[in-house]
């Protein structure tokens, strides 16, 4: 058995140690004796997204955004919508998360049309939202806390077609105003928590793996792993954010 993972646009969406998430997923499968293959799909790749069990999209810099949009609008956008409707598990972070929404409007009012797979849009703000932050996912996903680092100037608003991924406990989240963080739709998880999100949130990593395995094999059961170090990193950041919040 092998889980097929697609890393979409690793050449331009790779800003903040995003590779750590892929590394985390493959290692956690490997330690459980489950195989994993990672296919990188850079700009210009024409292979189909069909057949992948899990798609990962990271965050990027503004400099390469036009290169990315050109490629998306050559058909990759329709393919992403189809894969998402088909229940493929997707983790999209920061720029990649915004990209799945309907559009991005800059602070100056310039608008870029995005994929439109998720009912959300993003508007650029003047002030960047930067720092360690923490949110809690709803009970139906496990009710666990997630710690991460956010660094974005875009404010994302969710439409009625998606659920928030979690509620902000410390930090800004989607827009710093409505208390929501990220978005969830079918098996898509979008978040502002960039970089090494999964390694220190093993519950979130396993949630993604369970969803992907369930869709592929009908069973999402995972054997437990020793997460002592991971939880130490997680708990220390939780404690720090709680202290500074008081």
């Amino acid at each position: 058995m092998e889980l097929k993972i697609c890393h979409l646009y690793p050449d331009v969406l790779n800003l903040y140690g995003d590779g750590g998430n892929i590394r985390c997923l493959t290692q956690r499968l490997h330690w459980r004796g489950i195989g994993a293959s990672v296919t990188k799909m850079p700009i210009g790749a024409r292979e189909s997204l069909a057949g992948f069990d899990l798609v990962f999209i990271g965050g990027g810099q503004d400099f390469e955004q036009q290169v990315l949009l050109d490629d998306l609008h050559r058909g990759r956008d329709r393919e992403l919508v189809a894969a998402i409707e088909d229940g493929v598990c997707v983790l999209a972070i920061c720029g990649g998360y915004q990209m799945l929404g309907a559009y991005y409007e800059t602070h100056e009012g310039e608008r870029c049309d995005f994929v439109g797979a998720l009912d959300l849009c993003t508007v650029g703000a003047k002030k960047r939202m930067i720092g360690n932050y923490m949110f809690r996912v709803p009970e139906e996903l496990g009710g666990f806390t997630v710690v991460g680092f956010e660094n974005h100037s875009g404010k994302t608003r969710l439409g009625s077609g998606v659920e928030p991924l979690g509620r902000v406990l410390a930090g800004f989240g989607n827009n710093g105003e409505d208390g929501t963080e990220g978005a969830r739709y079918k098996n898509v998880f979008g978040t502002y928590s960039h970089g090494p999100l999964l390694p220190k949130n093993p519950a979130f990593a396993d949630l993604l793996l369970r969803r992907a395995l369930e869709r592929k094999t009908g069973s999402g059961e995972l054997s437990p792993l020793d997460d002592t170090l991971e939880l130490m990193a997680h708990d220390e950041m939780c404690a720090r954010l709680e202290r500074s919040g008081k």
Partner: protein
Amino acid sequence: MSFRAFVAICLCKLLRGLSRVLRRGGTAMPGRWALKVCPELLSILARGVKTVAITGTNGKTTTARMIEQAFTEQGKSYFANRSGANLISGITTEFVMNSTLLGKCRKEYAVIECDEAAAVKVFPQLRPQVVVVTNLFRDQLDRYGEVTHTLENIRTALTSLREPITVCLNADCSLTASLRELHHEIRFFGIDRGAVPSGERSELSDASHCIRCKTEYEYDYITYGHLGGYRCPACGYRRPDADYAVTDIPAQTAEGSSIVLRARGKRYLAEVNLPAMYNVYNAIGAVAAVTEMGLGTEAAISAVASFKCGFGRMENFALGRVGAKLMLVKNPAGCNQVLDFLQNVKEKFVLVVCLNDRAADGTDVSWIWDAGFEKLCALSGRLEKVIVSGDRAPDMAVRIKYAGVDPRFVEIERDYEKLVTALESEDRLVCMIPTYTAMLELRETLIRHCGGDEFWV
């Protein structure tokens, strides 16, 4: 000179003296107050001083110290700032401390390291005679933003200097070399094709697409990261020929490199008294700067051969039976170079990694996942223990675990006193790689235990 400037100088000297007596506060605070009193103070003091300024992401401190070594050896009257004082406030303090109360500088030359984001404020007042831009890499995104943003900052800083000066640019860095269009005298330094076997193209390039037209670059060779012989197939933007070029590297060891270089059409054989490829870049950058400052290429070559950096950059300590090396890491590019250096260590060693996330380190520790700690797995047999420390020790431990190192070989020790005490009985080489603020604390502990230079603020 105005009365305001006089008051500012007096205030600055007084505050600096007080902070020394009280052993509190650094070099930044006195300058900050002085600039409040007289905002153009630096420009007044810098008048008549021949200054070389060094900026860029990596290698500023080492390049500056190599240049400084040449000034020392040639018996020049000069002063230099320290890496902890590379913003406008700290630089102003250094100038005040080297000036009379009437604002006359006592030294002929200044060697000034300048933070890449601070250049916009510093350069117009400093009016350097020569500027070196070492390279541009992704660094502390929470503070500097995108790397192209840093590039534009430096471009603005250089554009603001109306009188043409000499600007030495790293030819192998496609971002840095794009500053060539300025009205200044441009000199390029770099490592030529064939000097080293080409490295592999990294997927995590900080500059994969053309700075002019955004087409993906093609490479004739890569030295490391995005540095090398790039060219754009669409618009023709390419690596320029280097005026100061390393043409061959006949030997590279854990102590240093032998290099053949070409400067102004002449060939030289030089020794670089520091290991690793990034120090070859620092050396050729220093050779360019020293030559352009008028001290001569021979003076530069002598300086890079005799130079000892210290202050956490490949600094040696008499710790344990074999000794310890302290190697500062700040970002993925620099960290990868240190990890490459570890591949060349022939003996058994213990690795200490200290990760802090304070303002000077960058508050976002995501970058550790962009550095190839997976290379540690190739060291099995030589690397027998990894100790992690610092404010974000568990994050580092997790990184090393996912790199594939057996967690049983990973220890967490957050108390530097205990860490160094335990390492005193170590019979293997100790390699320590801390981030900036971790380095300051660890180094202090090391000096207390095994001697060494005092912290030079």
